[in-house]
């Protein structure tokens, strides 16, 4: 199993989803994990193989669910906006939402459910405060199109974009505590830990947060 995990990690590090490796590193071995919007199950399979976690998923697309089921993963066809309410409190150690928060209809509600269902919530999202985004809006007067936000405004599924600072404010508003946070540069590499917030908010292409309930 561990060998397969290594191979998967190597493949992922060459792919566009390096953020998944950062997410994976935040998960304790042998824990119970729910990945919301798990796609074809790449992250869940990595977690199962590398860390022996009890991996579960929720995925909207039938193709994604089928791919997951074929990998032996327990994945339910469902929607982050409507189906998280079905899960009981404290069912998981981690609830993961990678690159999906900005596509939900009610990000705040989704985040609150994640922290109700899981002890911790791990969220990765594209940073709308990145300087490339800001300059496209400020100088060109156009909605930004970047590597991370590749679709045009009329085609994008991303309806609730936020900056890193916006996300921090939301986490604060719902009473969540930030356990870890990492900003990634445009190559998906983690940025220096000790940089101040405004630097991350300007140069971070995307961010990964691990939140917990306060108290």
């Amino acid at each position, binding site marked *: 199993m561990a060998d397969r995990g290594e191979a998967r990690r190597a493949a992922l590090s060459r792919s566009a989803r390096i953020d998944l490796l950062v997410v994976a590193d935040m998960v304790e071995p042998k824990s119970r994990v729910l990945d919301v919007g798990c796609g074809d199950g790449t992250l869940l399979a990595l977690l199962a193989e590398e860390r022996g976690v*009890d991996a579960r998923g929720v995925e909207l697309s039938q193709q994604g669910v*089928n791919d997951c*089921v074929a990998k032996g993963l327990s994945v339910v066809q469902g929607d982050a906006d409507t189906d998280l309410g*079905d899960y009981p409190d404290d069912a998981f150690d981690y609830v993961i939402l990678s690159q999906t928060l900005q596509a939900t209809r009610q990000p705040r509600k989704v985040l609150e459910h994640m922290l109700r269902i899981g002890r911790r919530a791990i969220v990765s999202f594209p940073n709308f405060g990145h300087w490339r985004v800001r300059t496209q809006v400020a100088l060109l007067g156009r909605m930004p199109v970047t590597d991370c936000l590749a679709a045009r405004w009329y085609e994008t599924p991303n309806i609730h974009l936020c900056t890193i600072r916006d996300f921090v404010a939301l986490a604060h508003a719902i009473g969540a505590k930030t356990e870890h946070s990492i900003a990634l540069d445009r190559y998906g590499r983690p940025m220096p830990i000790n940089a101040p917030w405004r630097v991350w908010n300007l140069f971070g292409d995307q961010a990964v947060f691990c939140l917990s309930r306060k108290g």
Partner: protein
Amino acid sequence: MRPLTLRSPHFYIPDASFAIANAAAEPGIERVVTIVPKQRALGHIEADTPHSLAVHFGADRPLKMDAGGAFAPLSIAYQTYGALNAAKTNAILICHALTGDQHVANAHPVTGKPGWWQTMVGPGKPIDTDRYFVIATNVVGGCMGTTGPASTNPATGRAYGLDLPLVTIRDMVRAQAMLLDHLGIETLFSVIGGSMGGMQVLQWAASYPERVFSAMPIAAAAKHSSQNIAFHEVGRQAIMADPEWRNGRYLDEGTNPNKGLAVARMAAHITYLSEKALQRKFGRNYQDREAPTFSFDADFQIENYLRYQGASFVDRFDANSYLYVTRACDYFDLAGDYGGSLAAAFKGTKTRFCVVSFTSDWLYPTTDSRAIVHALNAAAASVSFVEVQTDRGHDAFLLEVPEFFATTRGFLDAAARARGIAES
């Protein structure tokens, strides 16, 4: 014995157990097809002497029934496909739907048609008989060799008829467990079934969690809805309103409530299809004619189709058995057995579940499957859930729908790896 008369000019009567006579045409009708049962229908012969394996449990091994008391003797007719491995870890139990039977992957002994799941079960198929040992039983209350109302009661020498205690889904599952004990199989690698078969799967997982490694309830529900019960009641009333039913003693009296049973089947068959599929397949098309005949003849293709479904059904199914199996579904309410909590039925389960529903199934709609998934999540069970996009209605579970087949194969392959079952 009154013959069944079907006033349709182009009515195909497929079964050889009936003599077909062309009577003189009445005005407005091209011809009248008259069907005269030559002998006890083949379906009824299967009840006592099935073309399949059978095991008989005597008074020393009675079946505990929910209706009260212990029932004996009990016969269970079953079929198997593939081979049991040495460790006895590769057995799959397939549970049939309302009017299905144990003939999953072999020609049906009465109709001669392919087994009802021959596309799904067989060598190299998603339920691969080169890899798994597949067992399929006829349910208690059925009419294909497992004890049911058409079986002969050894105490009287006559068919049980309505003397058979009412059967529940749990009774069916208890009987299947008795068969497994008899076969020396402690745990099932998987229990799989659609519709009423899916109810048995859920009951298996709840009653014998330690015996079920994985489970696939397909197009099923954890309880019968008011609408479900309503449709079943229509069917039962159609049978009981047939004067040939004779209060359930038609086998003694040499009659057969074929008309009532055919109507019951026609009504039920509508619930198995989606409105869209009906429209696509039949629309308002006329049956071999250009214009309406201004009669109650089967002008429309859909009428002809339903009449065919009804008429061919009576060849292979017993009317009282239909009353019993529909009633078993109606009584099914798994949560009811666990203090109203479906999650409690699955508490602490280690079984891996794969729940499947079909978008156009309005008999057991996706919301029913979601309720099962919800409960399994609440019980922290390992569960996958796939809603398959199809316009083919409830019957989609019997059809070769690619996404459904891929899901089944993927789920079983992964479960087999976890179970350590060798690849074929």
